[in-house]
């Protein structure tokens, strides 16, 4: 089955990112396709490259990057949610003198249309939030 996932909350204030990650792993192991993970609202903070949790803790941002490396799952950060909250798309960052490497590896920034496309094309869409 084709499953899409949406993440609405920041990585460390709630368990959201953990639950979603475990769910995705289980879906992959069960042979399903995870079509896209869409980061919306405060979920966009999951993509901040500069995140540096203490060494004895799980690194949520890095875990997403590894998920992309291993499974090539499309990790999309909503452009308008991101821009409002301080994560700029590379070309915009260059133009306004912001951080042009803000996005962690494996993520891409795009519009809400990609969420709709995922919802329409997938058999299931599961939202995780705070």
């Amino acid at each position, binding site marked *: 089955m084709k499953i899409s996932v949406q993440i*609405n909350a920041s990585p460390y204030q709630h368990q959201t990112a953990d639950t979603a990650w475990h769910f995705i792993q289980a879906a992959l192991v069960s042979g399903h396709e995870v079509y896209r993970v869409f980061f*919306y*609202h*405060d979920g966009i903070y999951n993509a901040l490259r500069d995140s540096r949790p203490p060494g004895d803790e799980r690194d949520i941002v890095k875990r997403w990057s590894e998920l992309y490396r291993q499974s090539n799952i499309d990790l999309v950060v909503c452009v*308008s*949610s991101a821009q*409002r909250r301080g994560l700029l798309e590379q070309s915009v960052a260059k133009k306004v003198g912001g951080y042009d490497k803000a996005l962690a590896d494996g993520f891409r920034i795009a519009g*809400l*249309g990609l*969420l*709709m*496309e995922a*919802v*329409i094309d997938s058999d299931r*869409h599961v*939202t995780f*939030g705070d």
Partner: protein
Amino acid sequence: MKTLVFVIDKPLHGNVRAQEFLDMAMMAAAFDQRVLIVFEGDGAYALMKNQHADVIGLKNMIPVLNALAIYDINDVLIERESMKSRAISEDQLLIPADILSRCDIKSRMNAAGHVFSF
């Protein structure tokens, strides 16, 4: 074409999350999906008249709610039981909405392709 239900079950006020949630509904309409918006629980308060978010510098959601019709989103449902227990009468509603029972709303949702929440 899928039927996509957007459930507003908490107040819309005081954060941009609500605004971003309605952006999703309008994007769904722009993708020619069948959009249903449901107000229930404390979400029913979102449809009350006389909201003045500008008093505290917040973005006024009323134009956004009014814009739903422009996007051809006319299926706006509100749960009768939620209105009753919150003492909200029909004439207090900001935009036209079908007042349906919990049971009827549940049936509509059961038939949907997906249910969004925030």
